[in-house]
């Protein structure tokens, strides 16, 4: 096996590239938010390095000084992680609100997609209990999402929030996204008139949207 020739100056990773790679590794979460922050960090370090180079330092010295001023990965990563987590939480809250809004219209009082499932016999006591529970859970879920949305946006004018708020938002959203469809499907099954068409309709308009919310909530938890 021939030895690998030494890398050229251009091919070796610069100290800034190594730093940015380390910073990227220290920030879990949705890649698009992290990418934006890292891009700005990279731009900043480029400007700072140019400034030190213009002041007479060698490129290596200039990079080292720019990195010293920027802060170590241990110092900077926590703030970046908070930013990524809060952004992910805000998106999860938006998604939950958008999914919750049409549910009452689809299933109860509007299109009533499940109406065809009801047999001639009256609904069981359990059905009515679940009907009450899903009403409260759905309302609480939607209200919680609205509060989370406010807190993670305009609320930052007055509140210092971080990953704990993001975790709480994600947990709340995940719980809602799991409980509502489970109760909903159970109610449809209890009617005794669940057809294949109705099951597919429930999958499309209930299970799938809430699955997206659950996925977003899990990604938020990963960012925390």
């Amino acid at each position: 096996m021939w030895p690998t020739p030494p890398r050229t100056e251009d091919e070796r990773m610069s100290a800034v590239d190594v730093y940015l790679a380390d910073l990227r590794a220290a920030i879990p979460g949705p890649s698009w938010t992290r990418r934006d922050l890292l891009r700005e960090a990279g731009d900043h370090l480029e400007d700072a390095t140019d400034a030190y180079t213009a002041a007479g330092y060698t490129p290596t010295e200039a990079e080292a000084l720019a990195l010293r001023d920027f802060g170590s990965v241990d110092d900077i990563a926590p703030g970046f992680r908070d930013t990524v987590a809060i952004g992910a939480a805000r998106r999860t809250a938006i998604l939950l609100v958008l999914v919750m809004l049409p549910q009452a219209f689809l299933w109860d009082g509007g299109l009533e997609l499940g109406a065809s499932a009801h047999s001639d016999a009256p609904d069981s006591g359990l059905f009515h209990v679940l009907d009450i529970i899903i009403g409260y859970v759905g309302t609480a879920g939607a209200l919680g999402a609205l509060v989370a949305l406010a807190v993670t946006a305009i609320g930052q004018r007055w509140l210092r929030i971080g990953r704990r708020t993001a975790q709480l938002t994600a947990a709340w959203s995940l719980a809602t996204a799991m409980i509502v469809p489970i109760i909903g499907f159970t109610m449809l099954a209890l009617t005794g008139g669940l057809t294949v068409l109705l099951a597919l309709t429930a999958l499309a308009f209930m299970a799938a949207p809430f699955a997206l919310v659950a996925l977003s909530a899990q990604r938020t938890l990963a960012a925390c």
Partner: protein
Amino acid sequence: MKADALRGHLDSLILAVVEKQPLHGYAIIEALSARSGGELDLPTGTIYPALRRLEKAGYLDSSWSEVGGRKRRTYELSSAGRNALAGHRQEWRTFAKVVSGVLGEA
């Protein structure tokens, strides 16, 4: 002056330096350093979470623009940010007046 005392007002300081014109992150740091006479000593990377926070709070608007031939994300004060800055200035004047009054001259 203890750097921690200045850090606690970082949001107000950021709003103040972008009051006159949009600036990108590095320029904001340079302006903070210059206007504080070098007293504001904090890791420059900490500015970016603060900028994101102020943007999501509605105090700053950001856009990508060309600065010195390079694409940079620049930040400018929103109307809500101007109102907030005016409020912070008033609070600071009142605070400074009260403390000066109590501490008095040496």
